[in-house]
């Protein structure tokens, strides 16, 4: 038995290591390719992008991981405390004072090691804290356990089990509510909010002085912004049309797929165990796929089919399909069941009921959602271009990387113009359809 588990563990580790090796290899291959074949501006743009992605990983991932971890910690503590207090496994969350305590203590521990869990995962060390920050930590961390005291003090008419779990077991009418500013809880809430805000400002390194001290360095940038390179207009327009077509193609191909799937993802049409299973599978995969942003899909497809507009189209297509499927399906779920019943009563079969009872009710919302999605796709087409999805965004990223700000400004102007007009157009059409 022991050897079995050891084997399993070894397998998992080996798998993880292989994955990591493959990812590194892919990364290195990409860089090698660029070094060998990319001509300088492209290479610079790519280097810039890679650095940006890496920075994104360091900035975004650790706080997310920390938050998730804290959430689980809170949940686990809640369950443990409510079990200890009431003898039942309750999923009621602990009152916020406890959460503050958990966060405070964890934060103190983390700051002592200069590493949070999230930072450990991305293997990044914070720069050493400034003396001011150390003072801040020293001043505020000991305050957090104080919240516990208020939890003990604030127990009007509550049994110990209640004030430990924040479960109100007594009738709602019995406890007399107090004005928030009269209770220690209220004061602590204000204090806690203030501290959180201060901590947030410190962590994100908000420094208003930078606006002034670094201004002259950006003078070149500002000058470029106010002198767009007009000779880029022709090329820009060509790229604009390409971008527009990316959005059109992605939307056009996504609509039939999403429409067909939406009927299978509509709760009111999928009755019975097997259809319900299909419904659940579709909805779950749909929301999973949707939660991955189009930019990430663009990166995936840029690696898969190579950078260029095709990768961008694929990214937009995937995201559009799952998004439209959800929008369409919700529309189908919201139809008036009356006509469906009436058409069924005339002896029509399932397809006829769909055609005459369901479709007339959903056709206009479908068109409206499709336009809306196209509108989004036009905007997203430029963004997926930034990460290798082709179109005007790709060129824009390239200019930015090469510090060709006048050219970049020209392209940005064109993008703004396009997005604005598409926005206006689709709003007008949707108004007519409503």
């Amino acid at each position, binding site marked *: 038995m022991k050897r079995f588990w050891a084997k399993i563990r070894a397998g998992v580790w080996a798998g993880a290591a292989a994955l990591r090796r493959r990812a590194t290899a892919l990364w290195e291959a990409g860089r090698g390719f660029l070094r060998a074949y990319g001509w300088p501006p492209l290479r610079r743009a790519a280097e810039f992008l890679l650095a940006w992605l890496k920075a994104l990983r360091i900035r975004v991932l650790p706080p997310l991981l920390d938050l998730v971890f804290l959430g689980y910690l809170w949940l686990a503590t809640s369950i443990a405390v409510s079990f200890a207090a009431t003898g039942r496994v309750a999923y009621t969350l602990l009152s916020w004072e406890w959460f503050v305590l958990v966060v405070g203590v964890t934060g103190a521990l983390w700051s002592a090691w200069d590493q949070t869990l999230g930072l450990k995962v991305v293997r990044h060390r914070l720069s050493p804290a400034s003396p001011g920050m150390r003072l801040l930590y020293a001043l505020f961390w000991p305050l957090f356990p104080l919240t516990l005291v208020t939890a003990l003090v604030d127990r009007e008419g509550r049994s110990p089990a209640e004030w430990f779990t924040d479960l109100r077991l007594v009738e709602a009418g019995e406890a007399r509510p107090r004005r928030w500013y009269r209770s220690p809880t209220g004061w602590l809430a204000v204090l806690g909010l203030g501290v959180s805000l201060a901590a947030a400002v410190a962590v994100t390194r908000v420094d208003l002085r930078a606006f002034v001290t670094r201004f002259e360095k950006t003078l070149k940038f500002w000058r470029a912004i106010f002198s767009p390179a007009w000779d880029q207009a022709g090329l820009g327009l060509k790229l604009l049309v390409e971008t527009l077509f990316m959005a059109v193609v992605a939307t056009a191909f996504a609509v039939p797929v999403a429409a067909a799937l939406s009927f299978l993802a509509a709760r009111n049409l999928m009755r019975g165990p097997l259809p319900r299973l299909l419904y659940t599978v579709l909805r779950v995969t749909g929301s999973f796929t949707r939660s991955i942003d189009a930019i990430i899909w663009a990166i995936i497809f840029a690696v898969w089919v190579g950078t260029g507009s095709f990768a961008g189209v694929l990214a937009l297509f995937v995201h559009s399909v799952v998004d439209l499927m959800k929008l369409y399906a919700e529309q189908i779920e919201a139809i*008036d069941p*009356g*006509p469906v*019943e*009436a*058409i*069924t*009563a*005339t*002896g*029509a*079969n399932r*397809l*006829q009921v769909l*055609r*005459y*009872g369901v479709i*007339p*009710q959903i*056709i*206009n919302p479908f068109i409206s959602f499709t336009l809306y999605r196209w509108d989004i796709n036009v905007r997203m087409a430029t963004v997926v271009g930034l990460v290798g999805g082709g179109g005007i965004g790709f060129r824009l990223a390239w200019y930015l990387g090469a510090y060709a700000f006048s050219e970049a400004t020209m392209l940005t102007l064109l993008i703004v113009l396009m997005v604005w007009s598409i926005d206006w157009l689709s709003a007008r059409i949707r108004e007519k359809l409503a």
Partner: protein
Amino acid sequence: MAHVVVENLSKIYERGKVRALWNVNFSVEKGEFLVLIGLSGSGKSTLLRCINRLVEPTSGRVFLNGLELTRLSPRAMRRVRRRIGMIFQQFNLVKRATVLQNVLAGRLGYTSTLPSLLGWFPKRDIQRAKECLERVGLLDKMYVRADQLSGGQQQRVGIARALMQEPELLLADEPVSALDPATSHSVMQYIEQINKEDGVTVIASLHFLSLARRYGQRILALRAGEVVFDGPPEAIDDRKFKEIYGEEAEEVEIR
């Protein structure tokens, strides 16, 4: 042989364990006008829907011309439904479609699937639709969207849709509850006309006893899913009335 026979019909809704119908027995002769009365929630709608099996009964049997409907396959049931017209309290028209399209929908059971999906109906069906609309006095509204019509007009479109089916039986689920008194009579007169002139058997549920007395040849009263009265309208006296609607109730006239 009676036209419609209902035997020991019961319906229990699984969710909430509501007993909507309990051991209902009655029969309707060909060409009869039967009115169902009872409080809201007494099972009138469920009873009507059990006859054309829009609602599956829990137990019991329903016969139409001696054919046991409760045993038919879904496919065979669809064929039978073609001859059972139904009109609804909320009219249940497709609001975005034109009046003509709504009326033609009554013909779906007779039209083969592919042409109907493409929106093609035979010429004679379109001719028929015009005749039906003329009958309910709405020929000039043929190409108007259904939601542009008044309540009474919408219900007349509903009647025209049912007429398209060439029904032998017409089920009317509170056809006038959403209408004002004057319009109610107009709609009821169309239903009466179909009953008298075409010899179509009608089973209609009605809210107002006065309407039931005026149009019904026979009245069937439900209370909590059970039949508490079955007989001619004249036989409902004060005592019977209280038995159907409860001790607190008082009769309201509608003219």
